[in-house]
């Protein structure tokens, strides 16, 4: 422990032990525990106690828990647990008889403090920390703590109940690993007493008629099989599996959700799944016993397993597909014909399962679609994957939702009534449809996909979230369209679709909902980036109102939309798709996009559009956009002048990024071998280096970069540091030759740096000589600065010393600011 902290600790302990002193901030005690945990993990807890006897004194007031606040009491229990995790320290505390009085009947357990969930939680966490060695197990056995933990499993606080379950798992695991016990016996009857007691409790709970008790037992087992893969777990499963199987005979199956979790954790356990232990039969039986909504997650879990019998996988897949099969049957002329998902001959599900209520129908369909979406990208998904029927099902569901499907049965009619206008199902189906773009389907179905997507994109009934999903799915399908063999970027079908879509887009760009306008613009940016060079698309786009509307959206009242419009316009312009509109009302108002974007950068009151402009400008500079290439230096100078003054640090950081691109383009990449880059060669003559740096002086890049070095926002300073280090590396050979430089320029620059470092803003530097820049670059400790910046400003604030000082300073200050949360 830091000596400064060690000095403050006694005072702090005195404050904590004093019930009249309030604890300033509810996070302080948590942070204090974090600190003690770090110290204990790094060294000896016993030594810590011996060197800081105030800690033992601190633990003593727990013996009078009624005097302490529940928060402090819980803290002390947890602290004792952390310290007693090491066996020698445990013994030390035992000698003082402290532990039984902390965690036994004599402690808070029997008193009024126990009514506070915080104290019960602290008691469990303390025990969980200390249960790390055989001595702790003996202590638990003798103190009767295990019985208390059993009762806490049903605690009114869910967090206490959950922690109690986890503690049982922890104790069971440790007692089975105890070296004194040797190799675990094949019979739980011969296991250590503590383990037997816990297993006995689990058995009893599994036999209980009350569902909460069954749930508790199942949850404990799930946690255990998920985290512990020792051989004895197999013995335990063999012992308990008949009781678990008995649960399946009850109607309805109790705690179905927890049962599914348990069976899957067992199936995932390398120890258990390899030997099966009747597990596969139990899984198969469970699949057939559970309701569709309960069986879905189990089926998905089975299909995600790496190893599993084929028959079980087939059964699970059939269960997973059942709801979609029903949908297809309800809307096809001849139910059960090929085209239905997975074949329906032996699917036991009837449409009735989908129809008890709208809520059940919607829930089941959403769950199924989400499960299939999760399963599809996995390598262990069933093969062959039924692309076509799944596509057909997704399209049908979307049609049922927008009322364009024709039901062919009563079930279909009901489905229509349930799903019409249901946003939740629409969202799930569109997500799934997007994922299905990864595969192949018959052309006829792909046509249907584009048709339904177009319907959704056109429909005035589509909600903003549905539209966003429809745009995303559309993009996925367009991207996955195969390229035609004769050249061109899009197959004719998709091309036709895009042409049909472009007249729809203006409507969305004029939507009164900002999110719809924004989603439309995001879609446009993506499509232009991808197909902006494709003749058919270009022609259709230019013939539409889209470019003009996008340009108008640069002045949208919503800043998110303005930012997206900036990105879209940047992309359109890069692709030569931006045409300056002839505006009859304002003949003189025509200006280049560059000017318009600069205007946004200088005047927009929001950060998003300004940041978007900087991104566009940086990209333009990288791509040598025509407007930039015409006079790059002039462009960079103008942009940097505005960006360096911005109040948003992200804009300033992006300004430095643009400056770095300019540097790289002029001087060459750090490891570049570009023959055209003007790189000062090794041992370059001074005049050449000065010449190379002149453009940067002219665009005032150094003024911006040096000032940014002491920016109050850390990322800006970091960026500037990187930029100057790059520059120094490039000019290193030159400065080596020059020796120390001490001209008047250097002195004024160094003086300015000192002022900036002190927080003064001051006037701009004016014209700088490259030689002075190089000299100052060499004298600056940029590496040191970079190291300091990398530490983050939390470094000082979050130190243990700062924590102790804050807690001590707050002691005695009573006030309402404690509860006054922002």
């Amino acid at each position, binding site marked *: 422990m830091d000596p400064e902290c060690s000095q403050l600790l006694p005072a702090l302990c005195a404050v904590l032990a004093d019930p009249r002193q309030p604890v300033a901030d509810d996070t302080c005690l948590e942070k204090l525990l974090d600190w003690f945990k770090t110290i204990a993990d790094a060294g000896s807890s016993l030594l810590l106690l011996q060197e800081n006897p105030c800690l033992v004194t601190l633990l003593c007031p727990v013996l009078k828990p009624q005097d302490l606040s529940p928060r402090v009491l819980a803290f002390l229990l947890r602290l004792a647990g952390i310290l007693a995790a090491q066996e020698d320290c445990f013994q030390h505390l035992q000698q003082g008889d402290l532990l039984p009085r902390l965690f036994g009947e004599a402690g808070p357990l029997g008193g009024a403090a126990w009514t506070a969930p915080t104290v019960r939680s602290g008691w469990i966490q303390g025990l969980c920390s200390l249960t790390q060695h055989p001595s702790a197990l003996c202590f638990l056995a003798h103190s009767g703590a295990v019985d208390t933990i059993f009762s806490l499993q049903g605690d009114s606080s869910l967090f206490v109940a959950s922690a109690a379950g986890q503690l049982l798992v922890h104790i069971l695991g440790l007692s089975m690993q105890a070296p004194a016990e040797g190799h675990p016996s094949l019979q739980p009857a011969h296991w250590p007493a503590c383990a037997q007691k816990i297993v006995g409790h689990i058995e009893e709970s599994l036999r209980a008629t009350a569902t909460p008790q069954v749930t508790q037992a199942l949850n404990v087992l799930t946690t255990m099989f998920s985290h512990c893969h020792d051989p004895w777990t197999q013995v335990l499963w063999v012992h308990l599996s008949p009781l678990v199987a008995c649960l399946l005979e009850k109607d309805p199956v109790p705690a179905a959700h927890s049962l599914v979790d348990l069976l899957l954790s067992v199936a995932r356990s390398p120890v258990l799944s390899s030997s099966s232990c009747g597990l596969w039969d139990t899984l198969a039986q469970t699949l057939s016993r559970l309701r569709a909504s309960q069986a879905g997650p189990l089926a998905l879990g089975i299909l995600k397993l790496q190893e599993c019998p084929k028959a079980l996988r087939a059964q699970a897949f059939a269960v997973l597909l059942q709801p979609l099969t029903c949908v297809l049957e309800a809307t096809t002329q001849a139910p059960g014909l090929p085209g239905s998902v997975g074949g329906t001959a032996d699917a036991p599900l009837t449409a009735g399962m989908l129809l008890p209520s709208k809520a059940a129908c919607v829930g089941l369909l959403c769950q199924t679609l989400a499960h299939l979406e999760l399963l599809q990208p996995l390598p262990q998904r069933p093969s062959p994957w039924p692309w076509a029927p799944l596509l057909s099902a997704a399209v049908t569901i979307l049609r049922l939702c927008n009322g364009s499907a024709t039901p062919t049965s009563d079930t279909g009619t009901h489905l229509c009534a349930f799903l019409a206008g249901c946003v939740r199902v629409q969202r799930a189906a569109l997500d799934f449809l997007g994922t299905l773009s990864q595969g192949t389907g018959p052309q006829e179905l792909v046509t249907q996909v584009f048709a339904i997507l177009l319907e959704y994109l056109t429909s005035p009934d589509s909600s903003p979230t549905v539209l966003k999903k429809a745009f995303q799915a559309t993009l996925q399908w367009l991207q996955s369209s195969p390229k035609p063999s004769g050249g061109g970027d899009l197959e004719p079908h998709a091309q036709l679709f895009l042409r049909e879509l472009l007249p729809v887009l203006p409507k969305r760009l004029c939507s009164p909902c900002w*999110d719809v306008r924004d989603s439309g613009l995001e879609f446009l940016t993506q499509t232009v980036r991808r197909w902006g060079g494709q003749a058919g698309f270009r022609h259709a786009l230019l013939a539409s109102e889209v470019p003009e509307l996008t340009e108008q959206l640069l002045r949208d009242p919503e800043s998110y939309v303005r930012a997206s419009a900036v990105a879209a316009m940047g992309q359109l312009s890069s692709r030569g798709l931006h045409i300056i509109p002839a505006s009859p009302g304002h003949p003189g108002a025509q200006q280049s996009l560059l000017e318009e974007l600069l205007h946004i950068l200088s005047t927009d009151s929001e950060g998003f559009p300004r*940041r978007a402009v900087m991104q566009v400008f940086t990209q333009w500079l990288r791509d040598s956009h025509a407007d930039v290439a015409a006079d790059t230096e002039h462009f960079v100078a103008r942009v940097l002048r505005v960006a360096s003054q911005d109040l948003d640090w992200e804009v300033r950081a992006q300004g430095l990024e643009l400056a770095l691109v300019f540097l790289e383009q002029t001087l060459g990449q750090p490891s570049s071998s570009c023959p055209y880059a003007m790189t000062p060669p090794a041992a370059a003559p001074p005049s050449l280096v000065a010449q190379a740096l002149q453009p940067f002086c002219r665009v005032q890049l150094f003024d911006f970069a040096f000032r940014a070095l002491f920016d109050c926002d850390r990322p800006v300073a970091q960026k500037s540091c990187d930029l100057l280090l790059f520059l120094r590396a490039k000019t290193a050979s030159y400065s080596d030759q020059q020796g120390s430089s001490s001209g008047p320029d250097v002195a004024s620059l160094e003086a300015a740096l000192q002022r900036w470092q002190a927080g003064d803003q001051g006037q701009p530097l004016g014209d700088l000589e490259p030689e002075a820049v190089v000299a100052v670059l060499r004298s600056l400790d940029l590496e040191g600065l970079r190291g300091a910046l990398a530490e983050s*400003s939390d470094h000082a604030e979050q130190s243990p010393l700062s924590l102790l000082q804050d807690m001590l300073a707050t002691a005695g200050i009573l006030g309402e600011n404690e509860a006054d949360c922002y």
Partner: protein
Amino acid sequence: MPEIRVTPLGAGQDVGRSCILVSIGGKNVMLDCGMHMGFNDDRRFPDFSYITRNGRLTDFLDCVIISHFHLDHCGALPYFSEMVGYDGPIYMTHPTQAICPILLEDYRKIAVDKKGEANFFTSQMIKDCMKKVVAVHLHQTVQVDDELEIKAYYAGHVLGAAMFQIKVGSESVVYTGDYNMTPDRHLGAAWIDKCRPNLLITESTYATTIRDSKRCRERDFLKKVHEAVERGGKVLIPVFALGRAQELCILLETFWERMNLKAPIYFSTGLTEKANHYYKLFITWTNQKIRKTFVQRNMFEFKHIKAFDRAFADNPGPMVVFATPGMLHAGQSLQIFRKWAGNEKNMVIMPGYCVQGTVGHKILSGQRKLEMEGRQVLEVKMQVEYMSFSAHADAKGIMQLVGQAEPENVLLVHGEAKKMEFLKQKIEQEFRLLPDAKKPRLLHGTLIMKDSNFRLVSSEQALKELGLAEHQLRFTCRVHLHDPRKEQETALRVYSHLKSVLKDHCVQHLPDGSVTVESILIQAAAHSEDPGTKVLLVSWTYQDEELGSYLTSLLKKGLPQGAT
């Protein structure tokens, strides 16, 4: 009593990362999704594992409701929706929808700026999250789905803050979020109708406090600013971009106008414009006084408050600067503080709570020598003041709200356990035990005037004495049902359906074929023109009005196929 399950995932018995899961009538609703500013690790967000272990988030949760824009109520939202994976609807009021992203963005920028956090939600994530928001109006009943409906009530506290009623069938919960029962300079007082929810979940920040009037605190604040400016000092007020900043701006603007003060007031970020724009836009959410004067002058168009330029901090003479962030832990406010801290003429006023570790927390706890980055020590000579402007209901206000809503049960959250215990007893005393003789109570009875005497008797007694027969007032309603079966069979199906749905009520199938639920009578008759349709004649007494309307709406949805 229907089962309503409440799981606080945060802010159960503390303040910060408010997040409460309510299960009601088979629906799961998350109330608020806040963050805790005092932590930098996982603990800053609520523990969502309780939900994720119940299956997919979007399947499990029916909706998320955000009460107001403060970060301890909405700060975890982009993390929850874009990183944990919730894809369902998020409900909030229109002002909250407009202002929430500004604060989230502010928070993100500070987190990334200060700590360089890379694995943090991005601007794009905030935007995508906001696209999932459905904005609601006050008192508008919003159908989340066929069974779940929500309704917002005015909560005061901050612009756009709302209390929400969540209703499934005849079961309901009211969640207050943070609220204020007394109007302040720019907002009105919280109000809710007598909705008699099964459960009222109320904040209890000031569970044991009767707060002094906010006017006193405002006067103190103005006095201190004025004194500092008069002696030529500079005043720094660290604030978050939006919320308290606007309230204090109104305060200073009015004071400057009245006192004809000339010292400049600056707001240090570019966010003022947008914030003020929203305050102007949502003028209907402010209090009556601001709304009334709106025609002559918009209180949010400030004459004296100007945008700040970084170079102004070095200007000589007095000035007042509002700078972000509010806890002096990074950026502009910290930079100005470092510059001004050494001069005893200057003053810093902290108008809100600061978490441990921040410079704000340190100076409020009286520390005057601060270790800054690089082991530099900053000596603080400037005057340090704390002014609480938080607008929560005090104990009296909470009791008032309980009295207004008349809930069956009250659950206290967002406060300290000890204080909650005290308030719990107060509520039980006030609303559950023997009536207080001095407190007005509602009585039903009949006043009889006879022989110049007045007597208040029960209605039954009055009828008996006067020899009158009681009139039965019944509501009636006809519900058309598509069912080709005979009337008796239809009635039987209605009986089975209601029996399965209304488990807590007495549902009977009478020998004459009619069905009764408490006082409600249902008879099935054939339709005169359409043999495939049956008409259900439903009637009920006024005492069972609520159940009657619920039952009618239930029957209008039709009968399930399986009901026989």
